[in-house]
């Protein structure tokens, strides 16, 4: 870091009011931060911390209901808050550019991506058509898209999420901006794509000498790319400093709490489950999806799950890891018989569950239960929590009164108040809903509990709470768990054994330590190498606190 670095963006005392009736008066309050040339500044915080609002203010893209009430946003010396929208739009896409979270919807479906990149040149330069085209092709090459000529003529829907995000990055880089704002640009992407995009950012910092403001919630991503870190909570900056300071010697309790919640493998020797009885056995499971042949399109088949074999013993936690499209979700649907399998068998406690006729299935359902991903979609908004908790037992013939008693007990176990029974889901936060879902699954006393990406939609600190709760309950009730996730870190934290899925097949299996320390399969190796923040040892927060106290 040298003194020749000049400050690109300097936010001073910025306060943005929230409309009345919100849970707090300001979206951000008294915010101060600087971004210099050749520097990546990460803004970290959980949802609702005001981190995205900050980037939208800088870009002049704030929703109308939000108004900055105080402070200034100095971009290369000019206060952009004082600019007219017309003046601001001359900077946008030109001197400052932004990359968004959702690559799937960030591009206009009606125009080719070439056209959408060229538009930037047409707006901010006086290049001729052929110059614009040449520059666009060059940009596509720079963001490492294969066959730029072909991509140039593609429509967004013909590209993958990672490819689309590269297009959005190309749009942002087109005019060589001094400031690049990235708002959770890799959150929606698979881990291998994320690694590629992150390394692209590191390159850009050097080649374009831009200042990069990178908004994220993930401390491992911070460890991967940040030079400096700003931690926000409820609209306030609680801590800022160099990456080394914040990551390894966090001072503020909130930062410590967040860092402590970063999932890491902590358990050393899992209790042996070797001799335990087998509760679930999956033999050569196959599931293929067919799009039926129409008059003008041939039938297509997608092999979603191919030759999957699993043996799960009582008390085991099996992690099933895979990226999107790996077939793990289809596997889950087959295991709980939301989808019928094509071939193979699923045995649960000596019964071939996958062959139980639909009519008798009812009696076997209670053996295996599931907790889903989306805490907002897995509870019916029109039924009380109590009504939804007793659904299972009532369906299996338990009197409602008895079931209600059980519901009370389970609410206590998942650490919820008793009066939750009479409330509706909209009165609970995501973490609370997920706990209710756990209680609902446990109502029928299942032997096997499947957690399908059950903590992926939660903030890290909440994620940790739920994971701890699951571990406790598992211990207490002697449950067997299948933990499905795309997040290797979470899998590492909770699993005894791991299977890695790719393209519908299991490519690697073994106990967790073995898989993580000594992977055999190339895909697993690639996956592990792609995990961000590998060089960073999460500091021992408890030790820090003791030292500080």
């Amino acid at each position: 870091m040298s003194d020749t670095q000049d400050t690109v963006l300097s936010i001073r005392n910025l306060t943005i009011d929230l409309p009345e009736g919100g849970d707090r008066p300001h979206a951000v309050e008294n915010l101060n931060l600087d971004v210099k040339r050749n520097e990546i500044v990460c803004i970290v915080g959980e949802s609702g911390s005001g981190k995205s609002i900050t980037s939208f203010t800088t870009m002049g893209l704030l929703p109308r209901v939000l108004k900055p009430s105080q402070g200034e946003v100095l971009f290369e010396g000019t206060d952009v808050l004082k600019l007219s929208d017309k003046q601001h739009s001359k900077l946008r896409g030109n001197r400052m550019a932004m990359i968004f979270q959702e690559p799937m919807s960030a591009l206009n479906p009606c125009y080719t991506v070439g056209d959408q990149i060229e538009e930037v040149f047409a707006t901010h330069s006086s290049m001729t058509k052929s110059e614009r085209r040449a520059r666009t092709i060059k940009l596509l090459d720079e963001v490492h898209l294969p066959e730029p000529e072909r991509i140039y003529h593609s429509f967004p829907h013909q590209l993958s999420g990672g490819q689309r995000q590269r297009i959005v990055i190309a749009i942002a880089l087109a005019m060589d901006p001094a400031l690049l704002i990235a708002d959770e640009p890799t959150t929606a992407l698979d881990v291998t794509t994320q690694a590629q995009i992150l390394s692209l950012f590191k390159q850009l910092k050097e080649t374009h000498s831009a200042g990069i403001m990178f908004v994220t919630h993930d401390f491992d991503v911070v460890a991967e790319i940040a030079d400096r870190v700003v931690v926000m909570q409820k609209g306030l900056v609680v801590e800022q400093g160099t990456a080394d300071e914040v990551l390894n010697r966090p001072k503020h309790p909130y930062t410590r709490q967040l860092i402590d919640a970063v999932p890491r493998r902590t358990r050393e020797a899992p209790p042996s489950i070797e001799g335990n009885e087998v509760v679930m056995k999956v033999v050569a499971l196959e599931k293929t999806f067919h799009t039926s042949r129409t008059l003008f399109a041939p039938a297509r088949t997608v092999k979603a799950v191919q030759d999957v074999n699993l043996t799960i013993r009582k008390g085991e936690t099996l992690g099933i890891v895979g990226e999107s499209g790996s077939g793990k979700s289809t596997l889950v649907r087959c295991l709980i018989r939301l989808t019928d399998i094509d071939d193979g068998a699923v045995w649960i406690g000596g019964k071939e569950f996958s062959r139980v006729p639909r009519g008798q299935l009812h009696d076997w359902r209670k053996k295996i239960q599931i907790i889903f991903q989306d805490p907002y979609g897995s509870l019916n908004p029109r039924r009380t929590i109590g009504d939804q908790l007793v659904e299972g037992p009532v369906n299996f013939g338990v009197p409602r009164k008895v079931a209600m008693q059980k519901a009370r007990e389970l609410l206590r176990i998942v650490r919820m108040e008793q009066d939750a029974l009479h409330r509706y889901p909209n009165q609970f936060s995501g973490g609370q809903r997920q706990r209710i879902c756990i209680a609902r699954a446990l109502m029928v006393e299942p032997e096997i509990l499947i957690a399908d990406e059950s903590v992926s939609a939660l903030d890290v600190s909440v994620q940790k709470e739920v994971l701890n709760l699951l571990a406790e309950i598992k211990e207490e009730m002697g449950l067997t768990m299948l933990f499905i996730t795309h997040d290797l870190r979470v899998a590492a934290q909770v699993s005894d054994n791991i299977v890695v899925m790719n393209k519908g097949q299991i490519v690697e299996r073994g106990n967790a330590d073995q898989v993580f320390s000594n992977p055999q399969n190339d895909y697993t190796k690639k996956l592990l190498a792609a995990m961000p923040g590998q060089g960073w040892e999460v500091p021992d927060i408890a030790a820090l606190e003791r030292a500080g106290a």
Partner: protein
Amino acid sequence: MVRFILTKLVMAAMVALTVSIISFGLVYMAGDPAIALAGETATDEEIAVIREQYGFDRPIPVQYLDWLGSAVRGDFGISYYYNMPVSDMIFSRLGTTVTLGLCAISFALLISLPMGVLSAIKPNSLLDRVAVFIAVVGEAIPSFWFGLLLIVLFSINLGWLPASGSDSWQSFIMPTIVLGYYATPALMRLTRAGMIDVLSSDYIRTAKAKGLRPRKVLFKHALRNAVIPVVSLAAVQMGFMLGGSIVTETVFALHGAGFLAWQSISRNDLSTMQALILIFSMFYIVFTFLADVLNAWLDPRLRSG
């Protein structure tokens, strides 16, 4: 693209075939058409004569295939009431109805598109409130009553426009307004809702982040996406309008196919009725097919779908 069009075409053909069965079968649903034609007081002999004369004595599937075969060639038989070839009667009047339909849909689009777009840009502005008010009021005015009110005002009180007939272009003004206003509220609401939806989408934010002028964001990026569902609805409305022309043409005594439909139904002229139901349905099927093709051109995602 070719595959998309072919798939839509087959679907359209199947719908058309089903519609033809329904419009043919309608006549038989109420009982023996020979009795219906001959009248309540007819003797058995008279009924038998009619039955043979019109071929009602043959098996129904044979009658249907015969009817369909001729219909495909544009021959709908002889009108039971007017004793003229049905196709001659219909085709000489269809021009009037199609002209009216085109005028009305243009009128509706000219009002609803700009108003829908403008009110979406500034929700809750005065213009938006006016637009919503027009939509709600418009939806509640019965078109035949609206037509009569216009006649009272412009023909009787002011004497500006002819109250009936189809001799001059002036005769089309009031029918166009009456038929067009009927489609306006739905089109306006859809344009407004679609536009609001699109304007809050991620790709509009991307376009703004590129520093594009608001005009370009609106016309290049937003309008094209917002107009896609409007195209489909306009086609549906166009089809409904031809049906609606029955009421409008009757109110203004405009001698189009709608007026003919009313006359033939009032006079129990079964063959003309059948033919008109089929023809109006065909118009609807063709319009929606064209809308599908237009949308596929507007939205590349549909082409590969």
